[in-house]
C-alpha cells in the first residue's frame, strides 16, 4: 500500500514522531457534549435567515434616524416647525421644488408641510416620540404582566381573585379608558404612558398565566416538586426559561401595537400634544386628497408602517429563534 505522506521528509527520528501514550482511565468517565450556549444558538438560528440580517440593518437605520438624526441636526420642536412660517412660498412644496428653493439636502427630500417645515425632519422627530412611547409602555406592561402572570398561574387563590378582576377589566373598552384618562389628566407623554399601562398589563398577565398553567403540571416540574425544589426556584429556573420565546413573541406584537394605538388616538383627537407620528397624520389628513401635497400625509403613514412591520417581523423571528426546539 502506498503511503499517503512520506514521513521521512520531516527529517525526524522514529522516537520523535511517535511517543507512547498511557491509557487514562478517568477520561472514559468524562461525559462530553458539544458546547451549547442558549443565546449563541438563538443568534445562530436567527442569522441563518438572510432576511433577518437585512431587517436588522433596516432597524438600525430606523433607530439612527429616529434618535441620532434629530440630535445631530439639533432639531428643536418649539422652533424648527415654524422657521418658514412667514414665507408663503415655502409651504406645501414638492421635493423638487423644496430642493430648488432651499438647496439640495436630506432635509428636503420629502418636501415641506403646511407651515413650510421640512417633512423629513418632522417625520423622524415624530417617530422618535411614538417609538419611545411604545418602548416605555411595552417595557412597563411586559414587566408587570410577566411578574403578575407567573404568580397568577401558580397560586390558586390568586387565580380565582385575578380571574374575576380580569373579567371586569377586560369588559372596559380599552379606547374608552384611555380616552377618559387622557381627558382627565393632560395629553402629555407620561399621562399617555399611564393610560396605556394602567390596565394594559392585565391582558399580558392573563396570557402568561395560561402559559404557566400549561407548563406548571408537566412531568419535569412534577419531578422537581417531588424532589422538594422550592416553588420560586421552579418558577425562575424551570418555567421562566421555557417562556423566553413566548415573551419575545409577545413583545414583538406589543411594541407595534402601541405605535398603532398612539397613531389611532392622535387621529381621533385624543392623543399627545407633541408632534408624534399620529399627530402629524391627523394634522395632514386633508393633504391626502390635494394634488401635490400627498407626501405630507403619506410620509408619516409610511414611516409608521415601516417601523411597525420591521419591529414585528424581527421580533417574531427572534421569538422563533429563541425557542430551543429550533436550535437542533
Amino acid at each position, binding site marked *: 500500500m502506498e503511503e499517503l505522506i512520506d514521513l521521512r521528509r520531516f527529517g525526524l527520528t522514529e522516537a520523535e514522531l511517535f511517543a507512547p501514550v498511557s491509557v487514562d482511565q478517568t477520561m472514559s468517565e468524562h461525559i462530553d457534549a458539544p458546547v451549547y450556549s442558549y443565546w449563541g444558538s438563538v443568534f445562530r438560528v436567527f442569522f441563518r435567515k438572510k432576511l433577518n440580517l437585512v431587517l436588522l440593518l433596516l432597524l438600525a437605520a430606523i433607530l439612527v434616524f429616529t434618535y441620532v438624526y434629530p440630535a445631530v441636526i439639533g432639531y428643536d420642536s418649539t422652533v424648527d416647525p415654524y422657521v418658514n412660517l412667514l414665507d408663503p412660498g415655502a409651504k406645501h412644496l414638492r421635493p423638487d421644488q423644496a430642493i430648488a428653493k432651499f438647496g439640495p439636502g436630506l432635509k428636503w427630500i420629502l418636501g415641506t408641510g403646511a407651515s413650510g417645515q421640512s417633512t423629513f425632519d418632522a417625520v423622524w422627530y415624530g417617530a422618535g416620540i411614538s417609538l419611545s412611547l411604545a418602548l416605555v409602555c411595552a417595557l412597563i406592561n411586559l414587566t408587570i404582566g410577566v411578574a403578575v402572570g407567573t404568580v397568577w398561574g401558580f397560586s390558586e387563590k390568586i387565580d380565582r381573585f385575578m380571574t374575576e378582576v380580569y373579567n371586569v377589566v377586560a369588559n372596559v373598552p380599552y379606547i374608552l379608558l384611555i*380616552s377618559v384618562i387622557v381627558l382627565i389628566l393632560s395629553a402629555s407623554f407620561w399621562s399617555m404612558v399611564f393610560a396605556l399601562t394602567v390596565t394594559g398589563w392585565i391582558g399580558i398577565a392573563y396570557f402568561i398565566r395560561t402559559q404557566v398553567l400549561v407548563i406548571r403540571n408537566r412531568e419535569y416540574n412534577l419531578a422537581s416538586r417531588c424532589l422538594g425544589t422550592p416553588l420560586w426556584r421552579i418558577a425562575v429556573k424551570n418555567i421562566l426559561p421555557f417562556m423566553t420565546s413566548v415573551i419575545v413573541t409577545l413583545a414583538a406584537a406589543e411594541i407595534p401595537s402601541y405605535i398603532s394605538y398612539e397613531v389611532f388616538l392622535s387621529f381621533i383627537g385624543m392623543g399627545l400634544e407633541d408632534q408624534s407620528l399620529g399627530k402629524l397624520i391627523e394634522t395632514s389628513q386633508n393633504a391626502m386628497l390635494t394634488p401635490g401635497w400627498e407626501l405630507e400625509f403619506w410620509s408619516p403613514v409610511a414611516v409608521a408602517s415601516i417601523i411597525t*412591520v420591521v419591529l414585528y417581523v424581527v421580533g417574531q423571528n427572534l421569538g422563533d429563534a429563541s425557542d430551543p426546539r429550533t436550535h437542533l
Partner: protein
Amino acid sequence: MAGYLLGRVLRGLLSVLIVVAVVMVLIYSCLDRNLIFANDPVFTKQKSNAQEVYKMQQWEYYGYVDFVPYGDYLVQLGLAQSVYDQAVKLGDKPAQDSTVAADYIRRFTAQYEAEGYTVVRLTGKKKGNTANYLDGGEPRLYAYRDVPLILRLRDYLTGILRVDNIHAVKEDVGERGLTFTWFDPVYGGEKFSPAIMGNGTRHKYLLYFDDQFPFLHQNFLTISLGRSYSVNQGVDVFDTMTDKQGSRAMSMVTYPSGNREYSADDLHSAVHVAGSYAGGDAVIKRNFVDDYTGVTTRKTGFSKLGYSFVIGILSVALAYALAVPMGIFMARRKDRLADRLGTVYIVFIMAVPSLAYIFLFKALGGWAGLPTSFDMENPTRIMYVLPVISLALPSAANLMKWLRRYMIDQMHAEYVRFARGCGLREGLIFRAHVLKNAAIPMVHGIPAAVLGALVGAILTERVYVVPGAGNLLTGAINSYDNGVIVGVTLFYAVISVTSVILGDVLISAVDPRISFGRKGR
C-alpha cells in the same frame, strides 16, 4: 347548564356595574365640571352672576348638584304675597337687606347649612357708579350640595328601564286606560293594523305596526342611558343612537283631529307634553285633540346604530366568506407560495397601524372610482362598498391566521392519520374532519363580531364620514359630554359581556365535548 349561565349573566351584570361605576367616578369626580360648558353657546352669552346661576341650573339638570335658589325656598314656604315681595328683594350687599329679607335669609342659611349645603351669596354688580346692574349682575342667593356618587349611580341605574303605565302622566287627562283597536287611526282608520293606545301613559301608542323594520314596535318599555349635554342637547343617548337620520320622509298621515296632510310627523311616537295643546299654535290646534303632541319626524336614513350595524354585518359576512376558503387554502398549501403570500398579508395587517391601511384602501378605492365618503341625502348602494371592505379585509386577516393555525394543528392529530390510513382522500379528510374541528374555536368569535357591528368602527366611520355609532364616544369625549360617555360605556360593556357569553353558548352547542353543565365538568 341553566344554573351556570345564570351565574355567568349575573357576574357579567356585576362587571358592567363596576365598569359604569368606575367610569362615573372618573368623569364625575376627577374631571373639572366646568368643562361641560366648553361648547355651550348659551353659557358664553350669560354674564356675571347670571352665568354662575346658569351653571348651577345645568349642574342640577345633569345630576351634579342639588341646587336651591332662595326664591324657590320662599315659594315653598307659602308666604303671603306682601311678605314674599319684601323677602325676595335682595340688597346689593348683605348690609343693605331689608329687615324682613334679612330675617328670611338668615333662616334660609341656617336651614340649608344644617343640611350640609353650601350657601352662596353673590353681591350685585353695577355699571360704574350708576344704579343699573351689569348684564346679569343682579344679586343672587342660593344653596347647593354635591350629589354623592353612590346616589348618582343609583339614580342612573334605576332610570335605565322605564315602564310606561296609565299613571305616568301626573296631570288630569280624563279617563285613564288602555284601548285596543284593529284599525290604527294613523292610517285613516280603515286599514287593518292592530294597535294598543293609552290615555294617561307617557306614550300614546304602546304597541303598533308600521313599515319600518322590525315592523312591530312597542313603547311599554323604554331605555334611557343618560341625557346628552352637547352632542345632542337634552336628548337621551339611546335615542341619539336609535333615532333616524337624514332628510324628512313625507307621507300622508291622518292626525287625531281627522285632518289629513302630507307630513313627516311620526304620530306613533307621540308622547304627552303637559299643556301643549292649550298653549299650542294654530298647527297644533288644527291637528291634535289632546296633549299627546310630542312627535318626532320620520326620516329617510338609518339611525346611527342602523348604519353601523348594516356596515358591520356586511363586513362580518364578507370577512368570513373570504377568510374561511383562504385559511383552508393556506393550510393545505403550507409553506408553498399561497401560504407565504397569505402570511405576508397577515403580517401587514397585524403590524401596520389600522389607520394606515384604511387610508390605503380609501386612496385605492378613490383611484378606482368608488365614492370615498358617505352621503346620507343621496344614498346609493355603492357608497357602502369601501367602508365594508375596509372593515372586512383586516378582520379577514385575523380569521385566516387562526383558521390556518387550528387546521395545521389538527392535521397532525391521530384521527387524521387514521383516516389517511383507512384510505380516505385528502380532500374529504379536510372538508369532513379537519375543518369541522378547526372551526369550533372560530365559532366562538361570531357573536362578538355580530354584536361588535353595533358598536361601530371608530376609525372607518370617521375616515368615510359614516353617520354611525362609532363616533359617538369620541364626539362625546371631545365635547366633554359626560352623560353620553357614561351611556355609551354602559352600552359597550353590555355588548361585550353579552357577546362573550353568547360565544360560550354557541361553542357548547357546536361541540358536544364542551359542556357547562355540572356533569361535563
